[in-house]
């Protein structure tokens, strides 16, 4: 059975309805049940579920009639998102199709997400249009984030912020501001996202505006965790039973450690907890868009998952450089760091407060964190360049007038000062000329002394030259003597070396002799041993011979005794025979 044959069979059978598969396989592989079983599994796997990139999943008869699914936009653990065309209304939509079908937990999730998202109306939130679950996979119809491209004559689709690179830090601030406005709208409707991350932010293709999507983990007044409790991980902790939900790489520290199951989105205190989680999420989006990395990453070196790093209350890596290696504006850095403060109370109190800060940053207005007066003046100048220039010119002119008066006064003072310095200089000049005269006299005296010294020095040099000549002769004689001594030393050294060689040869000869003597001694010992051994052998053979002689003597004696007995016996027999003859 070749591979090509098996492929051909599978291709042909997969085109038939599933009810016929078993029968067809029995015809193709009648004696091979294992092959039939593998082929059946393969065929079922091929047709099953939307995970495979084959035909789109079925939404049920009515929905399949209405919606034409075309391109899969995304896929996750629980659902995949498809671009679809709504035939009834003639528009493009996005449809989130859940993998599970007909299970109450999955349906609850679909409904909860749809309710949460549909309750929020904002230009920065992707709108939910419909939700259905029937005989097919549960699904949710959403607005398709896209814009009409007049040049191409078609709709250009948006992309997630995770898949795009922001053009600059201003764009990061703008996107996060948009998302924060959308999140604020959600908060006003008691809907808290809890899973904010770049992947859940969609960017329109042309106007590059950000919109928040995927309220799959949202908590709202209508659907708290307590209604669908997750597994209780911890009990009797500081907050009672908690649940952990979110994406580990972006979780707020308190979210990673677990939020109370009983959070009520309408209660003031619980709202603050949920708002803080979303504000962290907004900061986390900004963090990744700036640095290109999420705040928490799994660390292989410590064997820690991203969730464990988040839960251990470490701090994210400092936000110093952007993904392009540029220095991050300290103003934006301060805003992001405040949004991502480890202590929830130290974060912005609302998403709107964060949005306002980002708006101020973009408008070059001071934020609540810009306290430096110089920075504020600088920002004001950047915002009002013409006014700033006018003020600068006015300040300049005023300064010029004031400066002229001040300069004249200063010049007069300098002139008086110079007059005083000239008088002092003249007095000093007189004093110096007197010192010069005195120095000249002293110089003449010194010259006379020097001439006398030079004469003495010449005589000294002459006597030194004479001494140098006699010393040279002496040194020459000493050098000759030294050379002779060296030659004699070398000769002695040669003699020593020769005698050393002779002594060595004598030692070697003695060693050889000793070795020969030792060999001879060993030979002699060996010969003595051989002699002893042959003597012992001779003695042994002699002993054996003596023993044999003794045995022979004994045998002769025995034979003689026996012969004697025989002789006696014969005599007795003869005697008996004669007696018998006499008797008869």
């Amino acid at each position: 059975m070749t591979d090509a044959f098996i492929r051909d069979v599978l291709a042909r059978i997969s085109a038939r309805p599933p009810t016929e598969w078993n029968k067809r396989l029995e015809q193709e592989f009648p004696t091979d049940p294992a092959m039939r079983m593998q082929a059946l599994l393969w065929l079922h796997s091929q047709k099953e579920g939307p995970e495979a990139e084959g035909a789109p999943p079925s939404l049920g008869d009515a929905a399949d009639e209405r919606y034409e699914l075309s391109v899969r936009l995304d896929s996750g653990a629980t659902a995949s998102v498809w671009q679809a065309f709504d035939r009834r209304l003639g528009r493009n939509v996005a449809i989130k199709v859940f993998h599970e079908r007909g299970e109450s937990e999955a349906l609850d999730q679909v409904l909860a997400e749809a309710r949460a998202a549909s309750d929020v109306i904002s230009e920065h939130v992707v709108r939910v249009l419909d939700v259905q679950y029937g005989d097919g996979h549960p699904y949710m119809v959403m607005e398709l984030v896209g814009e009409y491209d007049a040049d191409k004559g078609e709709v250009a689709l948006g992309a997630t912020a995770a898949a795009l690179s922001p053009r600059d830090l201003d764009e990061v601030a703008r996107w996060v501001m948009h998302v924060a406005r959308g999140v604020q709208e959600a908060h006003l409707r008691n809907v808290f996202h809890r899973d904010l991350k770049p992947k859940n932010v969609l960017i329109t293709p042309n106007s590059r505006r950000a919109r928040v999507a995927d309220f799959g983990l949202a908590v709202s007044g209508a659907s708290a965790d307590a209604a669908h409790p997750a597994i209780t991980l911890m009990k009797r902790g500081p907050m009672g039973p908690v649940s952990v939900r979110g994406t580990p790489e972006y979780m707020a520290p308190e979210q990673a450690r677990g939020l109370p199951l009983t959070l009520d989105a309408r209660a003031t205190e619980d709202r603050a907890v949920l708002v803080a989680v979303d504000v962290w999420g907004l900061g986390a989006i900004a963090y990744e868009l700036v640095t290109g990395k999420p705040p928490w990453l799994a660390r292989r070196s410590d064997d820690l998952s991203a969730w464990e790093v988040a839960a251990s209350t470490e701090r994210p890596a400092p936000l110093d450089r952007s993904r392009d290696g540029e220095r991050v504006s300290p103003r934006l850095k301060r805003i992001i760091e405040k949004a991502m403060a480890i202590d929830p109370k130290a974060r912005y109190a609302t998403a709107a407060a964060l949005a306002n800060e980002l708006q101020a940053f973009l408008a070059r207005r001071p934020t609540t964190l810009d306290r430096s007066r110089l920075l504020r003046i600088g920002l004001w100048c950047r915002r009002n360049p013409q006014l700033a220039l006018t003020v600068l010119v006015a300040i300049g002119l005023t300064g010029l007038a004031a400066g002229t008066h001040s300069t004249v006064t200063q010049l007069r003072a300098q002139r008086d000062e110079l007059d005083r310095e000239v008088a002092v200089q003249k007095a000093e000049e007189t004093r110096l000329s007197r010192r010069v005269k005195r120095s000249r006299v002293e110089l003449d005296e010194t010259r006379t002394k020097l001439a006398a010294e030079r004469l003495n020095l010449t005589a000294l040099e002459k006597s030194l030259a004479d001494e140098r000549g006699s010393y040279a002769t002496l040194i020459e004689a000493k050098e000759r003597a030294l050379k002779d001594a060296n030659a004699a030393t070398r000769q002695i050294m040669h003699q020593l070396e020769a005698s050393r060689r002779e002594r060595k040869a004598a030692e070697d000869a003695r060693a050889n002799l000793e070795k020969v003597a030792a060999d001879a001694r060993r030979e002699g010992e060996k010969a003595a041993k051989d002699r002893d051994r042959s003597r012992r052998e001779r003695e042994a053979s002699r002993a054996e011979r003596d023993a044999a002689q003794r045995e022979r003597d004994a045998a002769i004696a025995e034979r003689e005794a026996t012969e004697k007995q025989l002789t006696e016996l014969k005599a007795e027999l003869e005697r008996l025979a004669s007696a018998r003859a006499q008797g008869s």
Partner: protein
Amino acid sequence: MPSSKLDVGSEPMSERTEPSDDQMAAQFERIIRRVKSSMNYRGSYSTRDILGSLVARWLQSGEWERLKLLPPADRHIGESVRRFVLDRLEQLRRRGAHEELPEDLLVVPDEGTLIELIDAAELRSWIEARIGDLERGVVDPRVRIPVTNAAQIGHALRLHVSGQTQRQVATALGISLGAANKRIFEGTNYLVVLQGIESGLGGST
């Protein structure tokens, strides 16, 4: 091999009563769903996922292999997992400046749920290992459905299970979207068939 959830057992089919078509279809669906849902990347976590990841760590610690040698009544899986998770949380608690992590009782789910989590963790680790085999060009000889270019399929599956979309997989491998889809598709089918064999379906001639 992870087949504790499957009631198929490990006997060859020829030694058992032939199941009905419906039973067979149900078994197929279960195997296919388990494999495919294990291959899906989990972006957003629930508490169950977190606990699942801790159970996976517990599994790696070798404790499960030890417990499997004991009679079921003596295993006390819940207690073992609970102790392990508490130790892990304690380690985390010591890392941070805060002291807010719970020190008190830890409630783990009932044994049935834990078995599900263990089963899922085992399956996930099995899938990772089989993808590794494919990446090295190794195809299980028991699988008789032909698999061509195993290494390429393995690379595509690796990216797929790490959360990349088909489009990203295609870009990363420098191939067309259609080719990426085909590789992921073929690889998934191979894993389903192999998991079926591990569960006692179609493993012998």
